């Protein structure tokens, strides 16, 4: 049923813990050679789903296919996938070399080939010089790379990564992102990456699956989920956004005519299913231009500034007391309106989107 281009097929998977349902019939097809990210807040089911693929959680309903083979009822040690754990879970009594060797010996690799493979993988993560160290003698970033090497060594068909960067500090995390991405291209297998960090998801992924409350909200490229979110949850969770309550007058061919707060008419794309009536408009803060009072789509009063380094965040209040955030680039040419100033706001074409609730 699954085409050969699909690495992992998640088919109507349901997972319950007592009365709590962690996954409500989730279906996702993960393609070969893609960097696929499960993104969502804690408790959204992303880790449960990853653990179900690894085999640590039984599913109550549905099927899991790995390259077309049903693995739903296989124990973890019989599934040709490997996991990078959040806290790495390196074996503390073994050296780096022995840690990486572990999976190979269990799969009955020939000793000499296994040793060569361990050396190759350690070289790949630049840890050749640390082979004889114990995990406790390594820094967090090095431990993370050992975990990666250990999971890649047995040549898994798919690599699962459970928030592997969350234990690293910010600078290191940013460096490791590009390394991970490069490693994924080099190995040519699908990476399934779990994170709650939307920036991580946007920068590394080929496709992102946004989850919430045990359901898939949207699957798409980083650009899709950021610029064309299908609902309020996605718009709000991925990046920063302003949600404006608007009156929807008409929807035709995916284009909506709405009345903005203050009465101005506005046309924008609408997410799939939105009924006329009251809807929500998502406007990214960096897609709003500030102009003179009365000249924009919206009238507002500046209530505060926040200095963010590259940007300056402007908080403005609309006539109906709704507060919006506007991001202005921090350059010499940018004019920053004073607090209390009345301004007009221009919504860039295509910057706003009408969303389903």
């Amino acid at each position, binding site marked *: 049923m699954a085409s050969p281009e699909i690495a992992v097929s998640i088919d109507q998977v349901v997972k319950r813990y007592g009365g709590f349902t962690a996954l409500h019939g989730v279906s996702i097809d993960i393609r070969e050679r893609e960097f696929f990210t499960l993104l969502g807040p804690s408790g959204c089911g992303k880790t449960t789903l990853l653990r179900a693929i690894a085999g640590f959680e039984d599913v109550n309903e549905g099927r899991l296919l790995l390259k077309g083979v049903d693995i739903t009822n296989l124990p973890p040690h*019989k599934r040709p*996938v*490997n996991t990078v754990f959040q806290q790495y879970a390196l*074996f503390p009594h073994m050296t780096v070399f022995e840690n990486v060797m572990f999976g190979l010996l269990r799969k009955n690799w020939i000793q000499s080939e296994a040793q060569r493979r361990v050396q190759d993988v350690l070289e790949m993560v630049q840890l050749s010089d640390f082979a004889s160290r114990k995990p406790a003698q390594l820094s967090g970033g090095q431990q993370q790379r050992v975990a990666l090497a250990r999971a890649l060594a*047995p040549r898994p068909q798919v690599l699962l990564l459970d928030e592997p960067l969350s234990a690293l500090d910010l600078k290191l995390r940013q460096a490791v992102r590009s390394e991970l991405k490069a490693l994924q291209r080099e190995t040519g297998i699908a990476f399934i990456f779990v994170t709650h960090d939307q920036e991580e998801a946007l920068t590394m992924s080929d496709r992102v699956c946004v989850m919430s409350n045990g359901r898939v909200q949207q699957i798409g490229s980083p650009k899709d989920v950021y610029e064309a979110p299908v609902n309020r949850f996605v718009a709000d969770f991925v990046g920063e956004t302003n949600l404006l309550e608007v009156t929807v007058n008409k929807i035709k061919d995916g284009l909506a005519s709405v009345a903005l707060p203050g009465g101005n008419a506005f046309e924008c794309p609408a997410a799939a299913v939105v009924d006329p009536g009251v809807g929500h408009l998502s406007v990214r803060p960096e897609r709003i231009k500030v102009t003179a009072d009365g000249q924009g789509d919206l009238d507002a009063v500046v209530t505060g500034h926040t200095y963010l380094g590259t940007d300056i965040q402007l908080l403005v209040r609309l006539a109906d007391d709704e507060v919006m955030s506007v991001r202005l680039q921090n350059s010499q040419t940018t004019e920053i309106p004073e607090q209390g100033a009345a301004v007009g706001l221009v919504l860039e074409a295509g910057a706003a989107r009408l969303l389903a609730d």
Partner: protein
Amino acid sequence: MAAGAPMGAGTTSDIYKGDAARLMMPTWLIIGIFLLAPVIMMGVYSFLTKEFRGGVVWEFSFAAYDQFFFDRGLFGDDPPTLEWTYIGIFWRSIWQAGLATIMCLLIGFPTAWFIATRDPKSRSIWLFLITIPYWVNLLIRTVSMKFLIRDTGPLNEFLLAAGVIDTPLGLINTDFAVQLGLFYSYLPFMVLPIYAAVERYDFALSEAASDLYAGTWTILRLVIFPVVKPGIIAGCILVFVPSLGAFLAPDLLGGAKTFMIGSLIEEQFKGSAGNWPFGAAAAMILLTLVLVILLIYARAQNKVEDR
């Protein structure tokens, strides 16, 4: 220190160091008076001459050690041959203590594992239950065990009445009874350290191993066992060492054939039949034996860690 001067980190830690030394004083005092002093006394006594009604004469002598290891005939003038009686008792004691340790490990490990994997609230209840017998004196517990398993005791009477057996099991005064006594006395010393180790065990390690194609037994052998090994070793030492010197269980539950070191030493200090230097020598030999075993273990451990 000048008022308002910032507290240097060095100053603070120096204060702690001074405090630590002072805080250790009571410990050193107690160890000195109640541990080192008796051991030294015992060592000195083992090289003295025995007085016939118990006690010692202050005359230097190897007689006690000679008596332990060599047989010089009835009148003490034959050429010395190795004396097997006491070495035999030692050997049997080591065997008994070793067996008790293995039994405690076989039962204690799953018990500790069970307790450590309950939710935190019921863990403390289980631990409490494990330690409840220790609220009763060991002597009383051992005597109770004797009453329980003797031929006219409740165990045999119940089995006879139920028709399971025709004649009493004859458990009392056997090696098995001694084993039972040792096992019962020292099981918690096995359970508690293993529990402490398992409680700290990160179960993600088991998941990682299973993710890397290890089955249940392989995980137990290659991951769980090595990681909780310090707890297991501590438990084994805590059971083996007191079992080796135990005298209550062999005395009360065993017979003449199950004589152990503890009883041998105890007898030397009892009444006019005693021989203090010989008892002291046997105790010193036992102490040496235990220290040698611990040293061998410590060196093996260091080698593993240096690797």
